[in-house]
Every structure is written in C-alpha cells, then in structure tokens.
C-alpha cells in the first residue's frame, strides 16, 4: 500500500497519509501504544495557508476531543487546534516555536504538534476515521472550500 492517498483539485494535490487516524476536524493522530502524536492534515494546512504563529497549550494540559488545544494563525485566518483524543500533553514539538512553517512544509512529519498520553485509546480510536474514510470526507470538504475556484 502506498504511503499516501491523493486527490487533485485544479493544480492542488491533497494527501492523506495511510496508517494514521483522522478527526472530522482535520487533525491526524498516530497511535503508538498508549500514546499518540498529532498534527494538522495536509488539507487543513493547504486551505488555511502559511502558518505565521502557533500558540500551544502548556505541558501536562489535559485535552478532550472537540476542545481547543491551542491556535494556529495564518495570514488568512486564526484557527483552533482541535483535540482529536482524550489525554495529557506530554511533549510539544520543540521546532514549533521557531519554525511553525513546518506545519506547511511537512504536515505529517516534522510538522507534528503534540505527543499525548492517551486515557482511553480504544474509545478514541473508535471515534476517529481511518485514511480511506477521511479521504472521502476530505473530498467533500475540498468541494465546499474550494468550490469552482
């Protein structure tokens, strides 16, 4: 299986990394045992634009799905980092302070945001989408967001 699922709108290529889970709010989660790493999907970073500022929550903050866990500011908009899982922030990507543009450059890699200690992995995982399901949702969102631009 290839590393990414892809779809193209006009010239823009949107990628969904396989093997990850996704929230309906367009954040990805990589489950690693009882921990998870999370970041912004390629779709979200593309439609929101180049990141200028990132405000993260302090270490050890408890997060819950659907709640805001920081903000990302681009020239177009300020949007929330919406927690995709339940848990405690145990690591913040140290590169984010000086290089938040990594969210645009490498959203599924060096652009990760938090590592989270999961409280209920099974329940969270059941609520998240796999790559194929997220791909279908993302395609609908692309049409809504970009329309016939």
């Amino acid at each position, binding site marked *: 299986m290839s590393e990414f699922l892809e779809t193209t709108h006009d010239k823009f290529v949107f990628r969904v990394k396989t093997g990850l889970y996704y929230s309906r709010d367009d954040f990805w989660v990589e489950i690693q045992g009882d921990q998870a790493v999370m970041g912004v999907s390629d779709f979200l970073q593309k439609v929101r*634009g*180049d990141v*200028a*500022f990132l405000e993260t929550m302090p270490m050890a903050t408890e997060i819950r799905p659907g709640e805001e866990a920081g903000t990302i500011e681009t*020239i177009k908009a300020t949007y929330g980092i919406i927690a995709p899982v339940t848990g405690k922030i145990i690591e913040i990507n140290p590169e984010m302070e000086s290089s938040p*543009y990594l969210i*645009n*450059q490498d959203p599924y890699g060096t652009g990760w945001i938090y590592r989270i200690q999961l409280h209920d992995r099974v329940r969270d995982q059941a609520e998240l989408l796999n790559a194929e399901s997220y791909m279908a949702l993302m395609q609908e969102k692309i049409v809504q967001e970009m329309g016939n631009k």
Partner: protein
Amino acid sequence: MKKPTGKVVVIPCSGIGKVYGALARETAYELAERVRPDTILLTCLPLVVVGDEQAKQLVTENPVITIDGCPMKCAHKSVESHGIEVAQSYQSISFYVAHKDLKPEGVTELDETGRKLAAVAADELAAVVDSLAGKEPK
C-alpha cells in the same frame, strides 16, 4: 564571499498567488526605489533562471539578496542552482512575524498596512545592504 562592488542585487520570489509574494516584491521595490536607490539593482527571477546573459552577469558580479514569499524558497533555490552564491536570504513571512501589528492583505497589490510593513522591512534590511555593498551605514 564576493568582494563588495558598491551594488547589491535584490531578487524577490515573483509569486502571484499569495500575499507574502506581494510583500516580498514590495519590500524589494522599497529597497530599490526609496531606501537604497543608489545601491540596489533589481532583476527578475525568471530572467536569471532562463540564463539571460545580462541578468546572469549581474548576479555573478554583485552580492545577491533573495526575498521569498513561501517556504518553497524558489528565489533562493533557483539562484543557488545556477551556482550563484546568495549573500542573504529572507522569507517575507518573517517580516510579519517580527511586526505582528502590521498584518498585510492583498495578493496583487498590498493594502496600506502591507505597504507599511514592506517599508519597515526595507528599512531594517538597509544595514545588511550597506554591509554587503561595502558602504558605511547611513
């Protein structure tokens, strides 16, 4: 490092799809037309890239500053890929990060705030330009 020639070439990234491309270009114009008109030489990035003799001579003989509008860093990478050393490289988003109160808007033409940011950025780059040109700071 090139010897100072009294001139410095500025190459903005040329992007036409984002505000940061417009900011890169406006900053270059501010440098060339207001801040250091006697020092700055402006050239088109595509001219350098397609190997135009005059443009190539300009960037070979003089120190080069690139100002990019996005993390793809087309200006920086394109100049370097032609074997030309870039003396200083900037991303215009960093001008906004340094001056959060000046949020630029507009893709084809910057709004007033964006033009103000470009002017501030160009003023801040003046010392670097003077140093590369081998001139005393004004």
